[in-house]
Structures are given as structure tokens and as C-alpha cells.
């Protein structure tokens, strides 16, 4: 919507995996069967620049929320790295604790001891989906916001903190602040609560905000207002967002870039508008074809769904390209194009830049094939 100039890279995620082990049961334990995992996030890499709104989209269970939680270390990771560029103040604190940044001023955040990660919690904040569940019902709005300041030791005195709280409430358009400051969450509407949740996320001046479906629980008529608040804040705070959503129309409206996830992996990344106008991956194409855009013509035709079956279980990920059992393109081409017929079910496609700024993991594109065949890029599932 409003494009802004992006700054340097502030987050680099490399091959992140979050696998949840399943309980083995007594027989499995005795027989020493190998443990089974739910592959919630299975090798995800992306970079985010300053002031960028980066969108993770996908259906439920594709791992988009888990990716966000992993970056905040709310779930244990299996492997992978995330390099993050903290704000100056935070970096100074980290250096005092003995953490040395790389030459770009970035620190690896997923393998730090929890104690050293704590200062970073100020820089990376989260906005949750449900504004009814994410605010403590027994806290007044000012207590909800002041808690953040106390935890991160921001503000010398009570007055200073109160002043900051009022300023933040104005930023999220809860005006006049004096009218909201002493209220409890149940005295606010859904949209107002979500603005309190946003205020809580921004009050410590974070560099990265992870917004997990921040508007999906809100009514259509107030969604736009929340999206506008979020858009205004990024320039005001110089912050980047990871915006997690299942709604591609919202993603197109608010994001700079979109990453489409399927079964724990990113299958396509690119400019938000380009990806939606011209999807490269067969899954993205199917996803977009399934969305009803408000148009009275819709009822006159059946939707052409280029996808088969249902999302498979994340424990037993299909070999090769994880989408191939559902892929209509693979079905049509596997006999005609022998090479594709061989590759899709056997070798996981890596994410390759096939056009400027457009990355896709699909053997439909000759470049992806040749890079894998010549061994320039290793297939995505290496290291398993």
C-alpha cells in the first residue's frame, strides 16, 4: 500500500527447523524405534530489511505461526540459525554480557543462553491474534503497558512511564489516552483491545514486530483501521514486521514481500503484488484461485481448483517435493517430461531466484532443475 524505502538487513533466518517429537510409547521405546517428529517448520530461510513488512502466508498447519514463535524462542528449535541486528542500546547491553556481533552488527539469537536473550526480548515483540485472550483481564490498560516498561527498565519514574504510556496510546489512536488508561480490557471493543495489544508491542521501541494474524478476529469494518495503524507505525518506529496471515488479500494490501509456506517450507517468495498477480509455484496458484474475491459473477461458475486431496500429515512428509502428491502440474507433465517425473518425487527442490526478486522451489522452472542437476545448489533436504 504505502511503499517506503527499505534499510539494511535486520534479520537473516537460515534453514530453521522446528520439529516436535512424538511420544514413542512403551513398545517403541523397548524396540528403540527412531523417534517420530512433527515437522512443523522444516528448513525455512529468509531475510528481512529495515522497515520491511514481510508476510508469511499459508493454510493452517503450514508452520507460519511456529516460525514466528521460534524467533521469539517460545518453542524449542531443532536446528537452524537466526541472525538479528539489535538496536544500539540493546547491542551495548549484549556486548557487556560478552556477546560479540558479526561485522554487520548482527547476533545469532537462537543459540544464545536464555539470560543473554532477555535484552533482545525488548527488540522483538509479538502481537497475537486474539485480543480477548492476550490481555490480562485483571490489569488496567496502564498496568498492561507499564509492565513492559518495568520488565525492560524503561523510564526512571512513575511519571515518566505514564507519559510514555500516554504517548503510545496516542500512536495507536486510543485518544484521549486519559479516557482509556484506567479501563480494564473487558470495557473495550475488539478493535480497541487489539490497539492496546499493539501499544504493548511497540512501547519498548522494538526493531522487529511479529504480528500473528492481528486482524483475523476483527470485523471487516474495523480491520482497515488496525492495518492503517500498523502501516503508520513502521515509519514512525523504523521497525520491520513479520506479518503472519492466511488472508492473501490482506497480505497484498499491507506487505512488501510475501513468502508462501506449505507443510513447513517456503515454496515461493517475492514482491507481494507480483506474487499474487502472477504466482510461480503451482501451490500459490491453487491458493489464489481458491479465494473468493467479492464479485457477483462468482456464483455463475465453479471454481477451478488446481489441487488434489488434502494437506498430508506433517509427521510423514512426502519425499521429494512435498507438494507433488497434490500437484496437478506434476500429474499432467510427469509422462511428457520424464526429467520432471523423476525429480519431483525424489529430490526436494531448492528455493531459486528465477526472475529478479522472485524465488520459487519448483522443477517447472529449468533453472531450478539445472542448478540441482549440476550440483551448484544442493537439494533442499540435505542434512537430514
Amino acid at each position: 500500500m504505502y511503499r517506503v524505502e527499505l534499510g539494511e538487513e535486520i534479520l537473516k533466518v537460515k534453514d530453521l527447523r522446528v520439529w516436535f517429537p512424538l511420544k514413542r510409547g512403551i513398545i517403541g521405546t523397548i524396540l528403540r524405534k527412531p523417534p517420530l517428529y512433527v515437522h512443523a517448520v522444516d528448513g525455512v530461510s529468509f531475510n528481512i530489511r529495515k522497515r520491511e513488512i514481510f508476510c508469511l502466508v499459508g493454510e493452517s498447519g503450514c508452520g507460519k505461526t511456529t516460525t514466528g514463535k521460534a524467533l521469539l524462542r517460545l518453542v524449542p528449535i531443532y536446528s537452524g540459525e537466526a541472525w538479528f541486528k539489535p538496536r544500539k542500546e540493546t547491542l551495548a547491553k549484549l556486548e557487556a554480557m560478552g556477546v560479540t556481533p558479526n561485522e554487520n552488527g548482527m547476533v545469532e539469537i537462537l543459540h544464545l543462553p536464555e539470560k543473554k536473550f532477555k535484552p533482545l526480548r525488548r527488540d522483538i515483540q509479538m502481537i497475537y491474534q486474539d485480543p480477548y485472550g492476550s490481555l490480562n483481564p485483571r490489569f488496567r490498560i496502564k498496568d498492561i503497558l507499564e509492565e513492559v516498561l518495568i520488565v525492560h527498565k524503561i523510564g526512571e519514574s512513575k511519571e515518566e512511564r505514564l507519559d510514555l504510556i500516554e504517548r503510545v496510546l496516542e500512536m495507536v489512536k486510543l485518544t484521549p489516552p486519559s479516557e482509556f488508561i484506567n479501563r480494564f480490557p473487558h470495557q473495550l471493543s475488539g478493535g480497541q483491545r487489539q490497539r492496546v495489544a499493539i501499544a504493548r508491542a511497540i512501547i519498548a521501541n522494538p526493531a522487529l514486530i511479529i504480528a500473528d494474524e492481528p486482524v483475523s478476529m476483527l470485523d471487516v469494518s474495523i480491520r482497515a483501521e488496525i492495518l492503517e495503524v500498523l502501516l503508520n507505525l513502521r515509519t514512525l518506529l523504523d521497525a520491520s514486521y513479520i506479518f503472519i496471515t492466511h488472508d492473501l488479500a490482506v497480505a497484498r494490501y499491507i506487505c512488501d514481500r510475501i513468502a508462501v509456506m506449505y507443510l513447513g517450507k517456503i515454496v515461493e517468495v517475492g514482491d507481494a503484488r507480483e506474487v499474487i498477480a502472477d504466482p510461480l509455484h503451482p501451490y500459490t496458484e491453487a491458493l489464489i484461485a481458491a479465494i473468493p474475491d467479492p464479485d457477483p459473477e462468482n456464483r455463475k461458475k465453479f471454481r477451478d481448483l488446481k489441487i488434489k486431496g488434502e494437506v498430508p500429515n506433517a509427521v510423514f512428509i512426502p519425499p521429494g517435493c512435498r507438494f507433488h502428491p497434490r500437484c496437478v502440474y506434476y500429474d499432467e507433465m510427469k509422462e511428457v517430461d520424464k526429467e520432471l517425473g523423476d525429480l519431483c518425487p525424489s529430490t526436494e527442490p531448492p528455493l531459486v531466484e528465477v526472475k529478479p526478486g522472485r524465488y520459487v522451489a519448483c522443477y517447472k522452472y529449468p533453472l531450478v532443475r539445472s542448478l540441482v542437476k549440476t550440483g551448484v545448489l544442493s537439494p533442499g533436504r540435505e542434512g537430514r
Partner: protein
Amino acid sequence: MALLEVENLRTYFYTLKGVVKAVDGVNLKLEKGQTLGIVGESGCGKSTLAWSLLKLVPPPGRIVDGTIRIDGMDVTRMSESEVRSKIRWKKISMIFQGAMNALNPVYTVGEQIIEPILLHTDMTREEAMEKAQELIEAVGLPPEILNRYPHELSGGQKQRVVIAMALVLDPDIVIADEPTTALDVVVQAQILNLMKKLHRERGMSIILITHDLGVVTELSEYIAVMYAGKIVEFGKAEDIFLHPLHPYTQALIRAVPRLKGDIHKLEYIPGQPPDLRNPPPGCRFAPRCKKVMDICNREEPPMIEYEKGHYVACWLYAKR
């Protein structure tokens, strides 16, 4: 005579904190085979309206005024047992919101589908099972599903089972209350395709209740827009989307981000819907309306036919 005629329907909830006027003077007409979409935001009374049509309003709610005529029979004056034997399942059935919870976890799918058949007809178990099998195939599921329990099915499959159940006694009207809200887009599109197919094959009327302006266009020939317990605009889907009259409808359409075309700045409607215990006098949308006039705050606008078949309740169009 229309298949369904609703006149001046009022359904109120008598809570300890006051009377919530969830549905407050709704008029509707539906002919055989028509599809009607009811759109509105949460709390506008659209689900209460659906429950009222089946006389299933949960206490402390009840229908306090108005008539509902289905095939000429006045449902509002019927006793509970009459409604059960003459109306529900046979004339009008419902696909409930959240199919996941609409099925009984301790019965197989087949048992649940045949239950209403055995209760309402004199079919034998075998005949009923045959009918169930026919229905389960009509909704695109393999027959072995009949022997499964609900927890063995995916969300999309459960939704299909719930749709099959709504069709057991070939009702004239099927009400679908947010049938796809909990589903992913791909599954949602499959379910909507299925409902289109069933509508074409069986010719029943469908009332689709949703908050999603995209979903409503998938199925509905006519659309009623509800706000704070009242229908504020009614017309053909084309009229509603291409020439919306009511400021609420206009704002709602402009508040939705689109997948195609230019990205224009989204509009939002300031404020929030009124408390239905104590709605504002005059037009209920007036406190949030950009085009509000003096009269809007004083008098309730009448529903008028502005163009042929396109009705609106707004003082901008009504003659004073």
C-alpha cells in the same frame, strides 16, 4: 405465494442486563430455488435470524412478534411438536457453524445420518442406510465414511457430512450458517463448489449466512445486508455490489482488501455497532454514518424500493 415469508420478525433475548433486540423487525421473502445471502458483522443478528426460522432460538431468547410462513404454514403459531413433525428437516434444515462440533463423537457418521430418516419416515434401517450412502456420495465422499467416527475425518470431510445430513429429508430450504468459516481457503472453495452443485442438481433454496463478502457472492443471487438487528439493504447480488445504496453497504465493500486491481486505501467505519439493549433512536447506523442528517437521529428510515427489486432503508433515498 412465496416459499418463505418473514414479516416483521422480532427475536429478543431477555437477559438480566436488559432486553437484547437481536432481530428487530425483519421482512424477507424467498421463492423456491432462490439463493439468498445474509451478510453482516458479528452481533448483527444474522445467526439469531437463522435460528428463528427453525424456531430454535435458545433461551433466554424468544420470538416476540411477527410471522414466519413456510409454504403457507405459519411457523410462529405452531407448537414445538408440530414444528418438529412438519417443518424441521422436511421443509427447512440447517448447516451449522463449526461442523467440527455439530457431529456426535460417539456415533458413526452413518448412524447420525439415518437418525432423522428413521424418526421422520417409515423407511427401514436398510433403506435409510441406502439413502445415507446416496447422500454421502452426492457430497463427494466415499461410502466407507459411513462407518467412521467424526474424529477420523478431516475438517472438510466433516463439513461435507454435515451438508449431507441437512439434505436427508429433501428440504425446500437449507440454511447454511457460516459453513466455511473454520476452513482453509482451498477446502472452503471445495465446499462452496459442492453447495453450488447441490443447488443446481436439487433446486432447493439456500440461505447463506456469512460475514465474508467474498463467500456470499459465491452462492447468492440475492443479498440482504444486516446491521444491528435490521435489514438495511436488499437486492440482487449485482445491485448490492455494483450499486450499493446504503452508506453501511458502501463502506463495508470499500473496507475489504481485494486480490485484483489497483490497491486503493481501505476505508473503515469509525466507532462500533450499537448496544442492542438500547439501540439509538432513528437510524441505527446514524452514529457511524458519514452522510448523517438531522432526521437520521430522530426517525427510523422506512424500507423503500428505490429501484426495481432493490430495497434500502435510508433517509437519503426515502421521501419524507
